[in-house]
């Protein structure tokens, strides 16, 4: 009998994992954004002293992981699992960074939902009694994502208003079975939802129904109405996606009010920085949550937050073959 499972899709941690330390690192453009002061390291350029974008993304991930380990104050050798993911083929940033870290490694792919997916898994491992310390991390890089999913970087493209700008950065956190700090208390794992959106330049619209589905199931399972949270965050829906999300939630009788925001609208100044509909990428939700939101909780401005990190599960092949874009949203609750 699964005693920790509540309702259809939610886990209630009986021994909630503690967030013992976080590490965040971003590129120069994010460094000019409104959340810069809450981010640990801001790079002066996209290369990070490396020859290729892929190598610099890997280095970002390693650095974020190192910072998180240092902050948590525990020895690297004590970490039982390293759960990481990124956007590249065969999640090379994650696995190559694991080569460097030499911690037993679980690679995951959830597109931009990776940060809450990894945190959910890490929490389950700790609460299940399989580990005392788990390191969760994910990364994305503007240049590598453009190459992976879109066109060469310097190509003459006029971006659509609905397209989103991939965050360069990485976020990591160390989950611990005991100690002080914010706790991950609930996790609702999302279903893959596809309402037939085919435009890879409108991923916010493709992911919004999945985020909404996860919210509805979370509310149904836990009985926590949206107004019980100080902040409800979606991962990277952008301006159009978050508008659709709020509308869908309202239609389903679950109103999200002023406590709702989207990570994709927070990391950049969407008025002055040219980022289309907002930010995207694994690092978007990770940097905003692990950097900004957890620091806000430390400062006492927030007590209980719900993060629904969203991922568009497309590949360059799938949309070229005319397939629609499935989306997924994974929710975690962080409480002081």
């Amino acid at each position, binding site marked *: 009998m699964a005693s920790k499972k509540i309702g259809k899709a939610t886990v209630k941690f009986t021994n909630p994992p503690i967030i013992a330390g976080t590490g965040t690192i971003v590129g120069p453009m994010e460094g000019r954004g409104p959340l810069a002061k809450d981010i640990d390291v801001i790079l002066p350029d996209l290369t990070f002293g490396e020859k290729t974008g892929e190598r610099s993304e890997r280095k970002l991930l390693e650095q974020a992981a190192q910072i998180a380990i240092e902050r948590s104050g525990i020895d690297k050798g004590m970490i039982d699992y390293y759960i990481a993911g990124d956007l590249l083929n065969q999640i090379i940033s994650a696995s190559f960074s694991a080569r460097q870290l030499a911690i037993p490694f679980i690679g995951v792919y959830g597109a931009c939902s990776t940060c809450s997916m990894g945190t959910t898994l890490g929490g389950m491992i700790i609460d299940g009694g399989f580990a005392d310390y788990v390191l969760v991390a994910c990364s994305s890089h503007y240049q590598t994502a453009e190459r992976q999913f879109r*066109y060469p*970087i*310097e*190509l*003459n493209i*006029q971006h659509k208003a*609905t397209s989103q700008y991939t965050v360069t950065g990485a976020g990591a956190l160390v989950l611990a079975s005991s100690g002080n700090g914010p706790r991950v208390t609930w996790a609702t794992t999302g279903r893959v939802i596809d*309402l037939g959106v085919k435009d890879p330049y409108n991923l916010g619209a493709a992911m919004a129904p999945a985020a909404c589905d996860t919210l509805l199931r979370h509310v149904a399972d836990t009985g926590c109405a949206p107004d019980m949270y100080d902040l409800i965050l979606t991962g990277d829906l952008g301006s159009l996606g978050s508008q659709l999300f709020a509308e869908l939630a309202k239609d389903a009788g679950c109103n999200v009010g002023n406590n709702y925001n989207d990570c994709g609208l927070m990391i950049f100044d969407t008025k002055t920085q040219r980022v289309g509909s907002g930010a995207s990428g694994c690092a978007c939700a990770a940097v905003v949550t692990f950097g900004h939101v957890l620091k806000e909780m430390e400062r006492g401005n927030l007590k209980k937050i719900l993060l629904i990190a969203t991922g568009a599960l497309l590949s360059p092949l799938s949309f070229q073959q005319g397939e629609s874009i499935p989306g997924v949203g994974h929710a975690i609750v962080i409480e002081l």
Partner: protein
Amino acid sequence: MPSEKARKQITKMPETIQAAQEQKRRQEAYQQLVAERTPKPPYLRHFLVAFMTGGAVCALGQFVLGIFMGRGLDINAASAPTLAVMILLGIVLTAFGIYDEFAEFAGAGAAVPITGFANTVAASAMDFKHEGWVLGMGAKMFIIAGPVIVYGILSGVFASFITYIIRL
């Protein structure tokens, strides 16, 4: 605007196979909603900017052509070095990361002239150089320009065939 009832259905998942049809209706309602909420591109502005910037690139080409003709070349002989100069210009601006910024503003005004074509080749070459000279740059250089060449030649064949028929 999808109807009130249809909108309420969007967020419900099918629990049975019989619900597949309902799923289809839900997809249609959602796509209708997305289409309505998606901001319309400012077409008129795009047309005007593309016309002006594309025209400016062409005027520059005309100016370069004038220089070569001034040096005593006839128009057929002068067009080849003119194209070479414009292609070089496109490549240099691409290498310095300026051409994509220009294109973000100019749209088709940057994509249509031969400088845009040069940009597609140079940008691909720059992107794939880390994968090696042969399998990287050599193989992927025409990843964007390739289709333009293929269908350009194909439409050339069709056009000349039509001309041939008309002249018979």
